[in-house]
């Protein structure tokens, strides 16, 4: 459903997109109104697909109250979470659906302008997106008086410059305002004071594409898929030691084992899974003993795990957990913006101790210190980056403590 158009048209073929039923979701929104959109999103159970999993209808329902102030909408295409590349596929294989989703988001907020914030690493897609925007304008899906409804809306592509933290809404906005991308203190949240102090609504690429899909096919049809409260389907990016690493659309509810074996072609070289990391480098490590867990928000939350962005990294039995947490922490050491102390100093302490583990000169008490510092980072960091930077290490302590002890001298 989300990926229904993959491989079916090129970025400059807007007519093909329209033939495939494109812009039906936008027309539905115009015809049936804002309340209908909220109702449909509610039935669909759609949660933010960037990783935060906040119910989209709750984020969007603010649009029901007319605001006097101009509002701004953003499509967050700053897909920087390692192991995540599903938005890349949406942007390259179905750019019009993203444009349609952002336009619906703009309609909901009575916004005049929307921005696709494209990560620097995806700059090669900027021209394609701008062409798609231009063609949408020519066909009357963007610009003045869209489809004769009186709604004016246009989209700009803004290129990031290589900073993971800019995936965080307020940091993203800071960089759009010509500043370094450091998160703002909340409150106020960006929904009340965002870009240029305007109320701002930011959604992940996939969330917008799913919203457009739901309005096209109807939420009840979308809800035929899924399991329990995790309704519908999800784009996952599975990679690492699997035979067929790629983006797949899967229904919620199949197990992690099924995803690896039936969807991604099993583990490379017939090896065994040692662990997974879900949702990118800020997500939890999952040991092989939990592979029969269903891939739903609820089943994973029950185990203190999470879907996050939809990334699934598979590591086989050859991968050392100590080396792995070194790679994970290197990332945060590089990307921490340095604004708040727990994150800035925490990743540094982590680096020192992990190096000791690698050199087999750590003490058992160092592991306890990792736990203490990690908990502090999680509870007191300023933004999501710092709050989740310790997650892989904390899960390594939980599930692989004995292996970590191989790096200690006592």
């Amino acid at each position, binding site marked *: 459903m989300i990926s229904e158009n993959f491989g079916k048209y090129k970025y400059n073929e807007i007519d093909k997109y329209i033939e495939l039923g494109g812009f039906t979701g936008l027309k539905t929104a115009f015809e049936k109104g804002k309340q209908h959109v909220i109702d449909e999103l509610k039935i669909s159970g759609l949660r933010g697909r960037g990783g935060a999993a906040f119910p989209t209808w709750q984020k969007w329902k603010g649009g029901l109250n007319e605001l006097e102030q101009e509002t701004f909408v953003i499509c967050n295409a700053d*897909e*920087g*979470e*390692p*192991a*995540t*590349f599903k938005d*890349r596929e949406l942007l390259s294989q179905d750019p019009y659906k993203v444009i349609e989703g952002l336009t619906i988001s703009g309609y909901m907020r009575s916004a005049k302008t929307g921005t696709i914030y494209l*990560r*620097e*690493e*995806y*700059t*090669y897609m900027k021209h394609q997106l701008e062409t798609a925007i231009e063609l949408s304008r020519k066909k009357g899906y963007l610009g003045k008086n869209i489809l004769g409804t009186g709604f004016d809306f246009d989209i700009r592509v*803004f*290129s*990031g*410059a*290589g*900073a*993971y933290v800019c995936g965080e809404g307020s940091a993203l906005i800071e*960089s*759009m*305002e*010509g*500043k*370094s*991308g*450091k998160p703002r203190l909340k409150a106020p949240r960006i929904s009340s004071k965002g870009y*240029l102090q305007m109320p701002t609504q930011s959604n992940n690429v996939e969330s917008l594409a799913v919203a457009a899909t739901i309005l096209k096919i109807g939420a009840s049809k979308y809800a035929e898929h899924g399991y329990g409260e995790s309704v519908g389907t999800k784009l996952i*990016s599975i*990679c*690492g*030691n699997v035979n067929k*690493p*790629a*983006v797949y659309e899967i229904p919620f509810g199949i197990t992690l084992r099924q995803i690896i074996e039936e969807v991604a072609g099993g583990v490379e070289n017939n090896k065994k899974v040692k662990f997974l*990391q879900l949702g990118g*480098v800020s997500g939890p490590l999952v040991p092989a003993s939990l592979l029969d867990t269903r891939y739903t928000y609820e089943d994973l939350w029950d185990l203190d795990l999470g879907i996050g962005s939809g*990334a699934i*990294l*598979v*590591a086989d039995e050859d*991968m050392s957990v100590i*080396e*792995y947490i070194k*790679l*994970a922490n*290197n*990332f945060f050491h*590089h*990307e921490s*913006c340095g604004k708040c102390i727990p994150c800035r100093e925490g990743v540094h302490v982590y680096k020192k101790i992990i190096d000791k583990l690698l050199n087999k000169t750590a003490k058992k008490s160092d592991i306890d210190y990792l736990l203490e510092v990690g908990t502090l980072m999680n509870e007191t960091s300023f933004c999501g980056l710092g709050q989740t930077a310790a997650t892989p290490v904390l899960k390594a302590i939980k599930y692989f403590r004995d292996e970590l002890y191989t790096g200690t001298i006592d």
Partner: protein
Amino acid sequence: MSNEYIDNILSNFDFSKIELLPILTEIQKQNKDNYISDDISDYVATKLKMPKARVDEVITFFSAINTSRKGKIVLQLCESTVCGVKKKHLIGEAIQEKLNIKLGETTPDNLFTFEHTPCFGACDIAPAMRVNGIVHGNLTVEKVLLLLDQLSKDGENNK
């Protein structure tokens, strides 16, 4: 280098302070040395009527903006988890040995710079590397050595 191209860029963005990031990105793109020098930072700050410290903060914050001159060809090997699981260290070692430089260094002929970079979303073809922004994936030691030979040859021809 004359500052005319900078003036053009600034005027295209209406000398708007909030457009500082795209302004700097564009200047770097058009600058033949592919970085923002201290002089350029000073010039932009003056033209935009803002403190140079504010411009420098943005320049140094974003990894896509360079603060020093780089080789003609910048090799950026992904150092993130997926490429790690897919043994990117073997690729990195091969590059350093072949070019006889260490991580972060530039070859004496100024042709190659070798760097690590965080994930750029090519995890389905890990281990992966960006060469002047173009992604090369499913790298093996053999493949990367061939690629370096090809790039050296192209570099010679363009001299």
